[in-house]
């Protein structure tokens, strides 16, 4: 098998075009439909280039207050989850790894659930304190869970990949039990928030949330890009990476932290969305290359595109009601994943994607 030597730049361009198209579609389609011309008009009005007209008021308000933040939130969440999946697969040198595997997603969910159930009115999402309470507790939960998994799986300063996977399963189970218990004892209003949010939703997206996730993602993404080379070296094994001048232990800890921040911020805002981090890197490897210099930026682009498309589907399928995002990603992701597994079985010992 020969791998085509087309330039990476061409692929990035292609992905970027797909992203733009899907963003426009996502901004346009829904309970309200905005044509590109209409969107341009709204932008012009809000910038003062053309006079605002009264009939446009409602549409403009919906577009800027509801639709646009939602579209951006979806894209950012998709990018964050895609990059996170890539990072984790690099860390574990295993393509069957999810951002939620090291306990990150479920820890974040538990942290947020604590606020929902025990916070009461004072810490509700829209109160002044609540604005920070949910993301902060989500960070804390994700971080605690991830660090616990790391502690359990590292001895004598070295991280054992298999123990990490098993510890992740255990910590996930504990966090899921915690969240389940909280939703069980929750009096009605809080329980509403947990069940709805735990399936993944962009419905409640607003500019504040977009800023939070946007800043976290941007910072973490830039940092992650700097680790592309060491991640490639890590593919050969920890010893080989050390021989090539990397510090595998420090690398692992730093990447875990970057990953935790991204996933926690995303989970705090949109709930638990599965399979994105699993499927995006797979698709990109099959399409093109397993090198992290390519995968990291490409997974951000493709993840954002996928999420924008999924969001459109969520809005259309049972309009005017909406389907939770997590359900759609599971419906798409699980069969794709099974197909990948079967393909791998048939290939036998040719390695992944051989």
């Amino acid at each position, binding site marked *: 098998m020969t*791998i085509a030597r087309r330039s990476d730049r061409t692929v990035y361009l292609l992905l970027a075009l797909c992203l733009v198209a899907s963003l426009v579609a996502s901004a346009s389609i829904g309970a309200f439909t905005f044509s590109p011309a209409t969107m341009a008009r709204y932008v012009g009005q809000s910038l003062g280039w053309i006079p605002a007209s009264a009939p446009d008021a409602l549409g403009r308000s919906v577009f800027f207050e509801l639709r646009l933040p939602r579209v951006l939130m979806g894209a950012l969440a998709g990018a964050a989850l895609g990059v996170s999946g890539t990072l984790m697969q690099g860390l574990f040198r295993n393509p069957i790894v999810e951002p939620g595997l090291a306990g990150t997603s479920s820890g974040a969910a538990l942290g947020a659930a604590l606020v929902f159930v025990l916070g009461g009115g004072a810490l509700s999402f829209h109160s002044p304190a609540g604005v920070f309470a949910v993301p902060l507790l989500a960070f804390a939960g994700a971080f605690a869970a991830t660090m616990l998994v790391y502690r359990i799986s590292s001895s004598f300063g070295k991280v054992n990949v298999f123990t990490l996977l098993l510890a992740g399963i255990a910590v996930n189970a504990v966090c899921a039990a915690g969240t389940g218990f909280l939703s069980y004892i929750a009096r009605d209003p809080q329980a509403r928030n947990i069940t709805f949010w735990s399936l993944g939703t962009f419905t409640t997206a607003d500019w504040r949330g977009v800023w939070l996730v946007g800043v976290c993602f941007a910072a973490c993404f830039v940092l992650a890009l700097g680790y592309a080379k060491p991640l490639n070296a890590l593919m050969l*094994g920890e010893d080989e990476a050390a021989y*090539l001048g990397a510090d595998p232990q420090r690398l692992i800890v730093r990447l875990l932290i970057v990953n935790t921040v991204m996933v926690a911020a995303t989970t705090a805002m949109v709930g638990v969305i599965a399979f994105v981090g699993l499927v995006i890197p797979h698709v990109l490897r099959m399409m093109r290359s397993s090198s992290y210099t390519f995968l990291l930026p490409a997974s951000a682009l493709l993840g954002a595109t996928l999420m924008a498309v999924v969001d459109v589907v969520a809005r259309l399928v049972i309009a005017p009601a909406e389907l939770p995002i997590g359900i759609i990603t599971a419906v798409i992701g699980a069969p794709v994943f099974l197909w990948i597994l079967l393909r791998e079985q048939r290939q036998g010992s040719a390695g*992944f*994607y051989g």
Partner: protein
Amino acid sequence: MVELRGVSYRAGGALILDDVSVRFEPGQLNVVLGPNGAGKSTLLRLATGLVRPTSGEVRYDGEPVARLEPEPLARRRAVLSQHVELAFALPVADVVLMGRYPHYGRTPHPRDREIVSSALELVGMAHKRDQAYTTLSGGERQKVQLARVLAQIWSDDSREARYLFLDEPTNGLDVHYQLHILQVARGLMSPECTIVAVLHDLNVAFEYGTHFVLLENGRIAIEARTSAEIPANVIERVFRVRARRVRSADHAEEYWRFDL
């Protein structure tokens, strides 16, 4: 030159290396020999600087290796392991390019790509540079790893000291690859390059090596420059076999025969 001074290594309660002192000179193909469990691989890992000895010191041309920064060290020192796992389908050239990582920041320079090509030519894998690594045979993969390792310490400044370590690089490979890889290694002998190889096949070792260190239970049993310097009874004791030298009629070739 790589020097081990009074090096001991203890792990899990067992003493694997016991007060070993040895010098590996540049311009030689130094070979470490010994039965399984003698401590060969441990010795090599200590010599590469990857692992710290429990006591004693490892020095590169006088400098303690523990004090060297990882990245500059990586530009001068490379290790070819027995078996490198790579589960993802990278093209061969990209795998070799990884050897240049210590040498560039974000993007490789044109010189790096040239070195990759040269390294592939040296090992005879240039014709497969665009092929996926995972489709290669075991012997081909090991050649590609060798190319990577060579690319790592490839230097245009011929006065810079370099260190190459080979840890049983031909394990499980057929005779063609065994010989080819060792031939390349032998061709690298030069005044600046210190080569240390752990080999398991005595005849191959004696054919290609120029300095031999025989380990027995964590200690050096004997050091020699030629196979003639090693008495047969030492081989018999260390490897627990019956050994005898066989010479060709004109005494030009010699090899060992073993029986239980």
